[in-house]
Structures are given as structure tokens and as C-alpha cells.
């Protein structure tokens, strides 16, 4: 780097100034154009599918040669606008939405119950084998979700064979799988805040006569709260969006929304799925904005998805 830098300085001083300046200007311009095009391309690729789903959900049915063609329903940009698909969301999808919501709410709550003390212990305590304990908590991130799905299904069968209590295809069964998936995210976000935590704040509270519980409640908790909110949000979204685990642990007539949508895309596709998907997108956006309002965008970003 240094050598080429020196060379560049040499050529800059020996070359005739004007053409060099012009060439640089042109190079910078081309570089800027390339950068902008690259950014635009990546963002278009990332966001276009969302726009297309929302746009196509307002698309009226197109008739081709006298009969409706299933895939020609799905049109973007839409030819006629209609809200009809929003009224035609099948009951199975609404039930699935309700189930997904309940599971995600419960799973994110339980993930916090598990994750906050775990993060406090992992960051604050020092004991032999801490690295192993820490990687055990992170294991659900490393194991492919499909593997977790089949593993929990086998576990439920084994427990069922022993106790006659089969929890696959039940609310509890789904919930356990989702808590397993979601807990590492809460641990991740809370740990990342705790690592920057100034311990003197707690010492000050203790010296000033606060009890340990009082210190925790009035000093520690408020500081880590953004991490808890961010973790709960990630946990909610991980649970709400999961397909593989829910596919194994759910059952016919007891599927979460993404699984229901997955099956509807593989088989009997209806454009009303676009409508329900748009509802979910708006809901996710509102949730993200709400949490962003509470803890601020930089706190949300700093947690880097809890990984």
C-alpha cells in the first residue's frame, strides 16, 4: 500500500496536471455511477418482491380466452384494481394467522423469560466451561431448522410412547419448538447491551443504599430494556416466520400461517393468499415501527439480529 501510494504521489507530481485531473474526475464519476447502480440493484432485488406481492393483491382477475387462468390472476403491475381478494381470504388462513400470532406472542415472552437471565449469567458470571455453556445456548442457530423440526418430532413421539401424551400437533408442542428457536436471539441482543454496561452504575446504586433487587429493578433493568425489546421483536419475527419447525410440529388443520401459505403456493393457489400476505406485511411494518419508536433505530440495529 505504502509503495503504491508513493508511486501515485510521484506520478501525480510529474504528470501534466490538467488531463490527469480530468481523468480522475471521470473515474470518480464512473465509480459513483457504478456504486449507485450496484446499490439500486441490490435494493431492488431485496424489496421488489414485497412491492410485487402488495401490488398484485389488488389485481383483478384477468380472463384469457373466456376462462380464468390461475396464474394470470397474479399480475404485476395489475390491470384492474380490486379489493375483492381481501374479502375472500379463506377461513383456514385466518385461523392460521391467529395461531401464528398466539404462538409468536407466547414464544417471544418465554424466550425473554429464558434469555434475559441466561444473558445476565453469561456476561456477568465467570466459571470454568463458560464457552461450552455459551455455545450450547447458541446451538439452535447452528442446527438447521429442518433438523430441529424432525428432532423435536422424534422427541415428542418418544415422550408420547412413554407417557401416552403426544404433544405433536398441539399448541404446547409448537410452542416448545419455537421457544427453542427464538431464545438465542434474546440472549444475543441482551448480551450485546450488557457487554457495554458500566458496572459502576450498579456499584453506585449499591453504595447509595439500594438493595440488590432495587438496584436490579431500577438500574440494570432499564439499561438492558432496549435489548429485551429488540430480542422480543426478533423472537416474535423468527417464530412468526418459521416454516420448517412448524411444518413438522403442526398437523393438518393445525398449521401456522407461513406453513399454510407454503402449502397454498405448492397446491391450490388462490390470489387471496396475496391479500393475507399483504396484511401480514403491513402488520410486520407496524410492529417494527412501534418497537423502533420505543427503543430507537440505532438500538435495534446495534443488536444485529441477535446473532
Amino acid at each position, binding site marked *: 500500500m505504502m509503495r503504491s501510494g508513493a508511486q501515485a504521489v510521484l506520478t501525480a507530481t510529474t504528470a501534466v496536471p490538467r488531463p490527469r485531473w480530468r481523468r480522475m474526475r471521470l473515474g470518480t464519476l464512473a465509480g459513483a455511477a457504478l456504486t449507485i447502480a450496484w446499490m439500486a440493484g441490490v435494493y431492488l*432485488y431485496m*424489496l421488489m418482491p414485497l412491492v410485487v406481492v402488495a401490488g398484485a393483491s389488488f389485481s383483478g382477475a384477468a380472463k384469457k380466452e373466456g376462462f380464468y387462468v390461475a396464474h394470470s390472476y397474479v399480475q404485476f403491475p395489475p390491470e384492474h384494481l380490486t379489493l375483492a381478494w381481501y374479502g375472500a381470504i379463506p377461513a383456514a388462513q385466518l385461523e392460521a394467522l391467529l395461531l401464528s400470532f398466539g404462538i409468536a406472542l407466547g414464544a417471544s415472552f418465554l424466550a425473554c423469560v429464558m434469555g434475559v437471565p441466561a444473558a*445476565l*449469567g453469561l456476561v456477568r458470571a465467570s466459571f470454568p466451561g463458560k464457552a461450552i455453556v455459551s455455545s450450547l445456548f447458541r446451538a439452535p442457530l447452528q442446527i438447521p431448522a429442518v433438523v430441529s423440526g424432525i428432532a423435536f418430532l422424534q422427541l415428542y413421539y418418544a415422550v408420547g410412547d412413554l407417557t401416552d401424551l403426544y404433544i405433536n400437533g398441539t399448541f404446547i408442542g409448537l410452542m416448545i419448538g419455537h421457544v427453542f428457536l427464538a431464545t438465542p436471539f434474546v440472549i444475543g441482543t441482551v448480551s450485546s447491551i450488557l457487554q457495554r454496561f458500566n458496572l459502576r452504575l450498579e456499584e453506585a446504586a449499591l453504595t447509595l443504599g439500594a438493595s440488590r433487587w432495587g438496584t436490579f429493578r431500577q438500574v440494570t433493568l432499564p439499561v438492558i430494556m432496549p435489548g429485551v425489546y429488540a430480542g422480543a421483536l426478533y423472537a416474535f419475527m423468527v417464530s412468526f416466520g418459521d416454516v420448517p419447525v412448524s411444518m413438522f410440529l403442526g398437523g393438518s388443520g393445525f398449521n401456522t400461517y407461513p406453513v399454510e401459505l407454503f402449502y397454498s403456493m405448492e397446491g391450490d393457489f388462490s390470489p387471496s393468499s396475496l391479500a393475507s400476505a399483504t396484511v401480514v406485511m403491513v402488520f410486520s411494518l407496524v410492529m417494527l415501527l412501534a418497537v423502533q419508536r420505543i427503543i430507537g433505530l440505532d438500538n435495534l440495529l446495534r443488536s444485529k439480529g441477535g446473532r
Partner: protein
Amino acid sequence: MKARWGLMLLGPFLVSFVLLTSSQYMFLHGSFFADIGYGRLGADLTAGNYLRFFSDPFYLQVLNITILASALAAAFTIVAGFPVAYVIARMRSRWSMVLLAMIVLSSFITIVIKIFGLIIIFQADGSLNRFLLWLGVVQQPVTIIGNMVGVVVGLTYFTLGFSVLLMYGIVQTIPRSLEEAGQIHGASRIGVFRQVVLPLCLPGITIGFLMVFNLCMGAFTSAALLGGGRVLTLPVMIQRTVLMEVKYAMGASLAAVLLVSVLTINLVSLVILRRFRAARLVIA
């Protein structure tokens, strides 16, 4: 005080430990039985499923496709994402926050919905094909659904947002002053990027590549929907074997193969990376 923090760990640790070990043990145990139809398992322990996997060219092909598609997708994701992460990290305006928020937003939407949109764009009479036909770039509609290109596109799509956020974090750890020093010494922007930024980010990028590769190896939804049942990756195969063919033991064996190959590939590449880095230090 110290003892108490350790105690807080006890409850979550026990729950996680029991869930993790019991589920992993049960499925590994289950993979050593024979399927005898209708979801029932044979009584005797056997390694038959694994023997079948490693002697059947079909299964080996599935494993090959999974590794190849994941490696390609991870490479594309890193190449596409790194410049974006770099530009956002070096922006001085509030736009950087907006750009990051857009990525976070898109990563919060269920993958099924996003793949839904991707399919609408890429399907035979979809927006992209109509546009290309109109431009005259293609004569026949081209489709990526149900072929390898589709699977790689789907996996890239699945991991792009995550990898930008990851690499944004990496770029942020590199002080801006180093780049300014390079520029003061007369290096061009591209020169600074190539000779200062890239070498400093390389360790982070390689770890990022491995993380993205892991995600791709385990990705089910995007691979299943864009593979269209014609390109089968290991996660898709596991789902089909268990839920469609009702072969729990074979499915468990496939899952074990997936888990072990992910772990092995990671371990081997980490060892190679360490060797490589050590060797470079000696040369320098």
C-alpha cells in the same frame, strides 16, 4: 454477587440442555432403525439408512447439489452485499439509517411471502419475462423456477439482508482514519478499497461466508419453493421423506447427514483458514 449471576444461568441452562440433548439424541437414535411402512420402525438397530445414502447415487447427488448451491449462493451474497455494507458504513448522512432500516424491514417479513413475490416476478408469464420479451432480449419466456439457477437465486435472496447487516458490523470496526491515510498517500478510492479495506475485512468476510453458507445449507423454504420439486436439496428431501413418504428413520438419517456435513465443512474450513493465516504470518 458473583454467585447469584451464575445461579440465574441455572434454570435456562437446564431447560436448553434438556431440550437440545434429548431432541438431538432421539433423532440420531431414530436414524438407526429401518422404516417398515406407515411410519412404523423396525425393532433392530441398523446402519442401513446410512449405507443406502452413501451407496445410492441419487442421495449423493442431492448432497452435491446442496453443497454446490449453498457455496454459489454464499459467494454471490457476499459479493453483492459487501459493497452495499461498505457504502452504508461509510456514509455520513442520515440516509445510512434509512438504508439499514429498509434491510431490517425486509428481513422481518416471512420468507414465504418474499419468495411468493420472487416467484411472481420470475415466473414464465411474470413481470420480468414480459419486460424482457418487450425489450426483445429473449424470444421465449425463461424461467428459473425448478432449476438450479432458481435455487441459487432463492438462497441468495434468503441470506442477502442478513449478510449486509453482518458485514456492516465488520466494516464499522475498521477506523476511517486508515482509509484517509491511504488516500493522503495518494492511493485512489479503488486502491484504498483493494489494498486497505479488503485485507482488513477479509477475516470477517470469511467467517461471514461460512455463516451464510450454513444458512443456505439449512434453508428449506426458498429451496423448496424455487426448486419446484425438481431440484432437491437436503432440507427439502428431509421434509419430503418425513411428511410425504412417512419414513421417519430415513428422514432422521438425512437430517444427521446434513448436520454432520455442515459441522464438518465448517470445522475443516476453520482449520484450513488458521493454517493459511499462520503460514502467511511466517512468510511476512
